[in-house]
Every structure is written in C-alpha cells, then in structure tokens.
C-alpha cells in the first residue's frame, strides 16, 4: 500500500473580506465595466426542465444581525438529478441549466436570492440515494474559511427520512437548520445562522 502524504498542501484560506463584490459581483456593486454580467447571476439560459423554484434567505451572525456583506454560492443537480459538469458520467444534464448560482446579500436587508429548479435525487458515495438538496458555500468578512452547508426541502419528508447525511446526524434537534421552508408558490426560505441558538449545521466535506 502507498501511504505517502500528498506532495502539495492546499493553499490556506483567507477571508473574502468586505469587498468580495469587487471581484465576484462587480455589476451588482455598481462598478461593472469589464464584463456585462456577473458570473452565477443566471442559472437558467433557456426553458428548463422540472419545477422552477426560488430560494430566499438571510445569513445571521451570533447577535442575530443580518450579514449585509455575505456572498452565497450554490451548486446542484438539475431536475433529473444530473450535474451539468464533465464529472457527470450518468447522462446529459439539462442544457439550459447551469447548476451554479452566486448571490451577494442585499447591502441593506441582507437577503440573498436564487432563481433555480428543484433538484432531483443523486447518489451518495456508496450508492444510496440522497434526498433532493443543494450544496451551499458561504463567504464574508469575518469568515476565515468558506462555510459549507446544504439546503434540503420541507416537502420531501420521505426522501429526507432516508437521506444518508440527514439520517446519520446525532443531534436531530439541529436537523431543521438544513431544511428550506416552503412559502407556497414554489418559493422557499432558507436562513443561515452562523453562531449561537439555532446555529446551522456546517459540513466538512
């Protein structure tokens, strides 16, 4: 067996800082001039398959104050459970769906927003099916390493009950922090609490 350590080590993270918008969402921050549209602003490039949904949320700090300088990214499968990525070997994903979205928190309210589709189910590393979910990555001033979490859905009770990640959680009392709440009309709310009561479950994955 080869037990050699990797030759190189991942570059250490540093905070995205308060001015992440300059580089990642310049048009959102009113200084667009170099390219026309911020990356990740549109997840649909044409008519998409499946159920179109919106997700809104706010990232709160440990005092309950909304972060007005966060940037949230999501990555997800299409409605059929396929990823629009070369690493997807199971089939061709919806050509009009990018799977990746990037949103800056509103600079006054702190709300972030994604216009996307309800993802299909995808297998875990061992082949068991996971419940429909969206991978989330959060950066901001004061966050030293991007935080990873997942959005699951409150109208997927049966799938959630057999999801390999959710069902392995020891502290079931924390599970609701991973569940987006339906607001009707295909709109969901997913708030993120960085610290304290109701702290969102973050993943090391």
């Amino acid at each position, binding site marked *: 067996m*080869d037990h050699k350590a*990797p*030759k*190189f*080590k*991942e*570059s*250490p*993270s*540093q905070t*995205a*800082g*308060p*001015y*992440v*918008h*300059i*580089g*990642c969402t310049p048009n959102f*921050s*009113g*200084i667009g001039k*170099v*390219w026309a549209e911020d*990356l990740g602003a549109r997840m649909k490039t044409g008519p998409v398959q499946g159920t179109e949904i919106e997700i809104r949320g706010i990232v709160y*700090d*440990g005092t309950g104050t909304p*972060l007005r300088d966060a940037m949230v990214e999501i*990555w*997800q499968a299409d409605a059929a459970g396929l990823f629009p*990525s*070369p*690493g*997807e*070997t199971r089939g061709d994903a919806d050509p009009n769906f990018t*799977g990746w979205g990037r949103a800056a928190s509103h*600079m006054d309210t702190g709300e972030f927003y994604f216009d996307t589709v309800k993802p299909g189910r*995808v*297998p875990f*590393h*061992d*082949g068991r099916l*996971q419940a429909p*979910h969206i991978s989330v990555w959060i950066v901001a001033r*004061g*966050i*030293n*390493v*991007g935080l990873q979490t997942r959005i699951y859905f409150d109208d997927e009770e049966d799938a959630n009950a057999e999801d*390999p*990640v959710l069902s392995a959680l020891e502290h079931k009392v*924390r599970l609701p922090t991973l569940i987006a709440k339906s607001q009707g009309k295909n709109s969901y709310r997913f708030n993120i609490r*960085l*610290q304290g009561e109701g*702290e*969102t479950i*973050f*993943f*090391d*994955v």
Partner: protein
Amino acid sequence: MTKSPNPPGYMVRDRARHPKALTPSYKTSVVRSPERAMIAFPTSIGENTGPVFGHEMIGPNDNDLVINWAEPGQMALGPRIIVRGRVLDEHGNGVAGALLEFWQANAGGRYRHKKESYLAPLDPNFGGYGRTITDENGGYEFRTVQPGPYPWPNGMNDWRPAHIHFSLFGHAFAQRLITQMYFDGDPMIWQCPIVDTIDSKEAINSLVATLDMSQALPMDARVYTFDLVLRGQRQTFFENRWEGL
C-alpha cells in the same frame, strides 16, 4: 462491499493548515464563527463536480487591470506588475481550466467599493478586478499595479499588508477556495491580524508571492510568481458500503 461507479472523491481538507473559525484578534470573526463541530462525510458526486467556465467567456482585457477599467488611452497609476504562476492540485498536477477571479485596492490602498471609507483617493482609471482561466498546464497570468497597504477598522493601528484577493474554481465544488496573495519582503505581513489567523508560518509563506526579475518585462512590469494549490482527489476507486446503515 460494492464498488462505486463514481470517480474517487476528494481528500479531506487539512483543517490544521487553514485558519480556525474563531480568531479573536480578527474581531469580526468573533460573532461570525460557528461554535459547533462541523459534520464530516465523504464527498460524493455533488461535491466531486462543479461548474465549468470556458475560455470563450474571457474578454481580451479581463486579465489586464492596468487598462481594463481605464478610459481609452489611459492607464492605472502605480508600480506595474505581472502576477503569474500555476494552479496545482495536492498531487502536484496542473489544474487546467480553473477560473481565477482577483480583486485588490489601488496603488494608494483604496478599494473601489461603496462601503469603503479610507481617505486615500480612487484612481479614475482603476477598477481593481479581473479574471482568467488556466491553460492546459494550470498556468495563469495577469497584469496589474501593486496594491498599497491600508489601515482598517480592527485595532486602532491595524494595517493590511499589500495583497490581492483570489477566488478559485477547480473541477469540483469541493475545491472551492478564496484566499489572498501577499508580497515577499513586506514587513506588514507579520503584523496583520488576518494573516495571523493562519497558525503555520510555512502555510503563511505559501501565500507570499516571490519577485522574479528574470521574467520582468523590460521597461514595463516586474513579475511576481504565485502558485496556488487546490484539494486533490483520492487515488482509489474502492468505496466501503456502510452495512446496516
């Protein structure tokens, strides 16, 4: 045991080399740091894949911050530099097609941002952002002006060393990374509460670009070399099924 049809997952992130979440000398981290332990599980297809960015989306000036925000015929003010290097994975392989986004203060240490209040002036010809995609060997380069250091509200006398922010996409969402590049020889590196969130001096040094005068563009720009490393994949395809779970 069943053999997974999926490609191998990613090696676990070495958290000891990254900053901790709570780093009180960087004050903003105090209320923005999770207190509970993170939950670990192996990467699967949702983490092993990621968005793809094609070279065709990159405009001709996207990687030239000296002119990409300037009025026609004008250029940004400051010491002209080229930053170049490679994006590697933890096995040392170049990561082709990686998207790099970068942003920075101008030569006076001032950011073009509505929430920035430092008294140093804006440069009307400098936006402070750009992007590029690595070539088949993981190589990248961009031209800019060396950013200035600046004071920031933390302690009353805290200054950031000159730095450029980097955002990186490799081939997988598991590799997503944001970090900062510093400049060799800058004494402010070792006085910065944000740099100090990293415990290992070796790890800090991996974020310090080195001057390479042999590559300097005559009568134009000096060259700083800066390599970045993203997480690597495991090298075995075997996956153990968790019987009974």
